[in-house]
């Protein structure tokens, strides 16, 4: 082993999923345990010193881009923000690609379906004015803006999507992230696509498939609450259906 590590360091047993779209298996590695070490550090060590063919994704490595999300001991997490000391059990770690997404290779998943569902939920802004019109004066304290602001910090990391059992059981379900963003737009008074959006989130894969089990809110690294957002969507869709207009 070519590691320039202190020979006194303890070696951890790291089980890493290897494979592709047609399946795979866990492969065992050993990595040295260090102080203040993150899971991303461990994956990087394995790729640099043990097996250069290991595929994984990361970018900022400081917890703001969401690219490094993986399943760590069965839980979806940002690996750059997960300290090994916090999750190490019996000197073992298990690292796998995010659940509920197709695998490209090893720890890198294909996010296409995640973003396709984002678009299908009409989780994008529909403007009603042009840049030549005056800016809309939005008071940040007004209830709708507060509701939107509480849910707006999503960086599309797909941790919630991986955590959700409703997503696992239903390939049509749009998922917590897409629906959470749709909710922020339902609360955006500048947006002109409300009716169409409510229809989009009421279809077969829509918000009514959420059973409020709360895995999304439990695991969101930005402490967002898609369960609450989806509850808001349910209220909005029922109001619209019963004719209480928007």
């Amino acid at each position, binding site marked *: 082993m070519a590691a320039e590590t202190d020979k006194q360091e303890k070696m951890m047993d790291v089980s890493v999923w290897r494979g592709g779209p047609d399946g795979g298996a866990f492969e065992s590695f050993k990595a040295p345990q260090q102080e203040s070490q993150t899971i991303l550090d461990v994956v990087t060590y394995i790729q640099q010193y043990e097996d250069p063919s290991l595929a994984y994704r990361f970018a900022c490595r400081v917890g703001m881009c969401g690219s490094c999300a993986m399943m760590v001991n069965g839980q979806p997490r940002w690996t750059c923000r997960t300290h090994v000391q916090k999750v190490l059990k019996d000197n073992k770690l298990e690292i796998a690609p995010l659940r509920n997404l197709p695998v490209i290779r090893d720890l890198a998943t294909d996010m296409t379906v995640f973003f396709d569902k984002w678009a299908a939920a009409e989780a994008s802004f529909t403007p009603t004015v042009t840049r030549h019109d005056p800016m809309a004066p939005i008071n940040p304290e007004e209830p709708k803006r507060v509701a939107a602001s509480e849910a707006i910090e999503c960086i599309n990391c797909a941790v919630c999507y991986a955590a959700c*059992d*409703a997503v*696992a*059981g*239903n390939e*049509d379900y749009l998922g917590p992230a897409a629906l959470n963003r749709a909710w922020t737009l339902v609360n955006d008074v500048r947006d002109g696509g409300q009716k169409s959006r409510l229809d989009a989130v*009421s*279809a*077969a894969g*829509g918000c*009514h*498939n959420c*059973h409020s089990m709360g895995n999304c809110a439990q695991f969101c690294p930005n402490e967002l609450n898609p369960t609450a957002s989806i509850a808001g969507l*349910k209220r909005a*869709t*029922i109001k619209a*259906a019963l004719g209480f207009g928007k």
Partner: protein
Amino acid sequence: MLDLRLYMLQRLSALILAPLVITHIGVMIYAVQGGLSAAEILGRTQGSIPWMLFYGLFVAAVSVHAAIGVRAIAAEWFGVRGATLSGLSLAVFAVLGILGARAVYAVTAL
């Protein structure tokens, strides 16, 4: 596998069932005291229009509610889809509705 309509039906049937369930539990707590017998039950329910309406509504609402609930489980845990899923939901609705109506009739008719 729920869309807006099925979801609303589920919530609506739940709202109808809520007071019926509480009443039913209360009645059962009262009725099981001192043991159960056919004569005792029938003595209270036979020929009773209020009980027929109560349990008739109960059966109707629970048939809808259980059918939609089973639909979600069949789709999410057992991967049932399409025509099979719809068929299963309708079957649950029919079985509960028919057996339930039969039971209501048996217990409240003269």
